[in-house]
């Protein structure tokens, strides 16, 4: 793990991976969208509105996945002082917040025709996803709140770990409380209950979103490293 802490090595790795992850992400999202919008069947109850699922579900999965990555990076930063871990957490936070926002908005758009309401306050999953969104915002705000960047990283890392308890709550909320949001259909004991014609576009979109996140993450960490290098050079020259 610490092998890739060397910025130079990381940059070379990122430069090698980036075109592939970016291209593959675009391809997977393209194919996934085609299948989602045209190549998969309409739902027997929901009709064509079910197609929002192919954006809503992968976005929600990514929201949780990115927070888990941030929690892992925060633990790595606090325990092993891994130099890149802070940058990974910093770069991932806005992306995760965006995915959470996308999940909330697409969920709301889907909820109006399906449930008759834009939002349901009593639902455990909706509430915990909203809390996740605020946790992301708090993480970003805390990281930028200090003049000393290191303090910002450390404080945000602690916050990310404290908030991680929310992730299993989101995942299991539909099993523990039977409210409005439907229970798990893919990641559940006993395997997925969705037909392959719907599972494939879902999987492709999820994979495409994940590679999109990886590409963005690599780009942002690269630019942070370059920025640090510029600042170091400027300080050396000026000093």
């Amino acid at each position: 793990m610490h092998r890739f802490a060397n910025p130079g090595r990381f940059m070379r790795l990122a430069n090698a991976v980036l075109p592939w992850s970016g291209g593959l992400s675009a391809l997977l999202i393209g194919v996934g969208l085609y299948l989602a919008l045209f190549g998969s069947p309409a739902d027997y109850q929901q009709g064509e509105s079910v197609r929002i699922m192919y954006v809503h579900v992968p976005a929600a999965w990514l929201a949780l996945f990115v927070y888990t990555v941030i929690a892992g990076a925060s633990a790595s930063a606090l325990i092993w002082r891994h130099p890149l871990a802070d940058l990974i957490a910093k770069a991932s936070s806005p992306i995760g917040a965006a995915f959470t926002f996308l999940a909330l908005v697409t969920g709301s758009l889907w909820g109006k025709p399906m449930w008759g309401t834009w939002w349901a306050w009593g639902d455990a999953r909706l509430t915990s996803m909203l809390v996740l969104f605020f946790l992301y915002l708090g993480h970003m705000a805390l990281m930028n709140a200090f003049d000393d960047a290191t303090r910002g990283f450390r404080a945000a890392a602690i916050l990310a770990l404290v908030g991680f308890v929310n992730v299993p709550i989101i995942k299991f909320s539909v099993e523990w409380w039977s409210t409005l949001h439907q229970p798990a259909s893919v990641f559940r004991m006993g395997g997925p209950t969705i037909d392959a014609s719907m599972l494939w576009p879902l999987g492709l979109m999820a994979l495409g979103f994940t590679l999109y996140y990886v590409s963005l993450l690599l780009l942002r960490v690269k630019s942070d490293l370059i920025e640090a290098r510029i600042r170091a050079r400027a300080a050396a020259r000026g000093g």
Partner: protein
Amino acid sequence: MVRCFLRIVGRDVRLALRQRADASLAILFFVLTAALFPFGVGPEPNLLARMAPGIIWVSALLAVLLSLERLFLADYEDGSLELLVLAPQPLELTVLAKALAHWLTTGLPLIAAAPLLAVFYNMDLAGLPMLLLAMALGTPSLSLIGAVGAALTLGARRGGVLIPLLVLPLNVPVLIFGVLALDAALAGLNARPHMMFLGAIFLVFVVVTPLAGAAALRQAVE
């Protein structure tokens, strides 16, 4: 170690009592916030009685936030925080002691003021014992999470504004189950499941928050 714990609690409570403004400010804000809602939603008694649990809890949440910024700030600024960090007793215990002192000087007065609000809102007074019990079980969690928030934002720009953003999302479960417990009691149903959840949340927080708060304090004085 117990003596150190009690010493820190005693010191903080004494300091808070000297500046009586803090505790009274919390109660004042509590009552004031709750008093604003009837102007907004109209004075109809049934509506207010229906809304009473939620409004009392939300106002309590907001009032607890008021005194959080100063929890560690005075010690941070005059250097005693560094001494506390370097002291032989575990920093986690110090955080716990500070949170307890905060609850004694903020949470407890709020619990004392809650019956007044229950009367304001025409709440069925049969629910009063449950209100006090739920608040007694819930407000310590608010102080604990608030302590972590206060420790994380030490020395931050606009720390006072940042604390609500960090603390309120984590307070939401306490709010939800506190209101559910009170609603259940008012409806004559069993409030025990919700009280169990409040207790569980408190137990999780009483373990996690000292660890997080101590880590935050350590990186604040580095």
